[in-house]
């Protein structure tokens, strides 16, 4: 057990979150000291001011915010803590910006185990450190038992966007190639497996990871050829591509055979009657780049630990319907529609 976790448990009156931990008094001050400040540990945060100050380089900043309510809180490959940090970093990285600082608001449910909370916070600290990001400010509230699902986390992240970087749907061109950095559906299926009601087990892990380093690697060599990035989280690749088609006013044509999907994701989807293109990812991006540079960009991505299974999956077309179309291995085509709501498991 880490020292921080041991301290948290030893210094608390009980093993669980109490209303007092959010009361603004001494209980809360000690709780914040032993857990959050000890884990996140950086110059700004350690000053314990209501807000934190930081320098920026001149130019553009990028800011993003995210609420995290995932259930279950712990899953193979991560927990709500690591997910919140990776997710915020990725939102910034998808702009081509360098993530620098994050703030975290916690809403804790009374009687949530401190041991589990410590694991969540330590995972956040690790994720931030690995990405050279500092968690410099935060907030803690406690609500009565039953009024939250254990832990809710809201994060806001700030990054710096170097001049000359223009990554957006408006920069997608017809003829651009579409690349994903690896297999799709891993996160969503690993979460579904945790929900016992669907009755299957898998060794699949969530792919939750920070994409910032990979994105910076691509930008270092291909800053003008990389036109757009987005991470296909909830709603999967299908939702993300449909959003981008609408925003860029173009169409996308995909090659079904080229889309990397792990056998276990395929199998789980066959079992439940789900389409893997609509399943969430947390460590993947879809990238749009100039056609002439696509193969070189793909090679570069494949050299990175988070890009080993990367593939070119399609290209951008002039389509006045702004649709995402997929060609099957049998030569037929189908539209990958923008679903209004979630898929449900089916038996027919």
């Amino acid at each position, binding site marked *: 057990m880490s020292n921080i976790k041991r301290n948290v448990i030893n210094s608390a009156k009980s093993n669980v979150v109490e209303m007092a931990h959010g009361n603004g008094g001494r209980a809360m001050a000690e709780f914040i000291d032993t857990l959050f400040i000890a884990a996140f540990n950086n110059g700004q945060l350690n000053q314990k001011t209501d807000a934190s100050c930081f320098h920026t380089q001149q130019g553009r900043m990028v800011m993003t915010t995210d609420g995290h309510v995932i259930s279950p809180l712990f899953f193979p490959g991560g927990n709500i803590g690591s997910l919140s940090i990776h997710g915020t970093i990725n939102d910034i990285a998808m702009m081509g910006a360098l993530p620098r600082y994050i703030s975290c608001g916690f809403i804790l449910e009374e009687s949530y185990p401190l041991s589990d909370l410590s694991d969540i916070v330590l995972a956040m600290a690790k994720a931030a450190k690995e990405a050279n990001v500092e968690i410099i400010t935060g907030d803690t509230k406690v609500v009565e038992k039953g009024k939250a699902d254990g832990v809710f986390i809201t994060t806001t992240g700030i990054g710096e966007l170097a001049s000359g970087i223009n990554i957006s749907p408006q920069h997608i061109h017809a003829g651009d190639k579409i690349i994903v950095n690896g297999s799709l559906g891993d996160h969503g299926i690993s979460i579904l497996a945790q929900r016992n009601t669907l009755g299957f087990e898998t060794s699949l892990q969530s792919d939750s990871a920070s994409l910032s380093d990979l994105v910076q690697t691509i930008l270092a060599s291909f800053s003008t050829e990389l036109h757009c990035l987005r991470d296909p989280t909830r709603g999967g690749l299908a939702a993300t591509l449909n959003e981008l088609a609408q925003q860029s006013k173009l169409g996308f044509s995909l090659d079904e055979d080229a889309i990397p999907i792990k056998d276990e994701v395929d199998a789980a989807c066959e079992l439940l009657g789900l389409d893997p293109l609509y399943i969430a990812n947390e460590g993947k991006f879809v990238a749009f780049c100039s056609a002439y540079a696509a193969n070189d960009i793909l090679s570069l991505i494949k050299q990175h630990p988070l890009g080993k299974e990367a593939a070119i999956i399609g290209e951008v077309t002039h389509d006045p319907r702004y649709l995402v179309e997929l060609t099957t291995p049998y030569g037929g*085509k189908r539209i990958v529609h923008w679903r209004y709501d979630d898929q449900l498991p089916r*038996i027919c």
Partner: protein
Amino acid sequence: MKYLDEFRDPSLAKKLIATITAEASDKRSYRLMEFCGGHTHAIFRYGLHQVLPKNIELIHGPGCPVCVLPIARLDQAISYARQDDILFCSFGDMLRVPGSQQQSLLRAKSEGANIHIIASATDTLTIAEQHPEKKVLFFAIGFETTTPPTAHIIQQAAERNLNNLLVYNNHVLTPPAIRAILDTQETINVDALIGPAHVSTIIGTEPYNQLCKDFNRPIVITGFEPLDILQGILMLVRQLNDQRANVENQYSRAVYTEGNKKALTFMEEVFELRETFEWRGLGQIPHSALKIKPRYKKHDAEKQLKPTTTRAKENKACACGDVLRGIIKPNECKIYATVCTPDNPLGACMVSSEGACAAHYQYDQPNV
């Protein structure tokens, strides 16, 4: 995945398509009905209808248990689900089907009804054990593939004295439905039938023989994978070219002539035939559905619960009936893709992912 991947081989598929194209005479059309919704879904998912020669027309049949469930029975299910003392269990397929007045199980759920989505009938036994204080109601739907599991859990409930487990039984039968469809020949003119795969693992090949004889139409029992469907179509094209009308079994790796006798025995012990049953879009079909035998009436929702709904109201503009009978194609329905969409389905054919309308919309190219 073994026994799936081999039957999805694109190079063999291309050969089958080429062979079908070569053998389908351009002097005639081939109107093939795939009875089973699973085939409809697969055809659209793989885009097979687009790569077959134009004179092979695939007509989508009514083998979608979600689509054919009468609206009155869905209304009753939704009404039960809203009762405080009932814990309602359903497969995901039924959740979005619209009943009267735009009601649905999903809407009831979001308004507080205690509805559980289950993946297996056995889940209801566990839930009934865990909640002795509630009536646990299983919304049982499906053709003969899904019926034996329901029979099994009813027997289990009886053995284990799980008196709080009730089944609202809507299981329907395939051969009578095929007969009803082929009996309306003057409107549809189906030349041959692509027979259901997994229903046939239960009922075997024998029930199709009489149908084949009575209507003089070839029937090929066909698996769901692309190679299965294409081989099945080729076998039908060859029969039609030879003017034969036989029952053939393409899915011989899983379908046996005698079917699954053990599963059939379970069904016979628990269920008996209803005199008649109303199919959404097809009207009354005699001896086409099952009810729970009196000896298991303790678990029969229709015996244990009072009916609570009034007259069902089908949407007037809904043409699901004609679509289910293959009389019109989905895009010939006046409200297809305009008012009636997967986001706002007005009829069952648009909700079920194997309903002809949903499959069309989901997978086919919309008009510009």
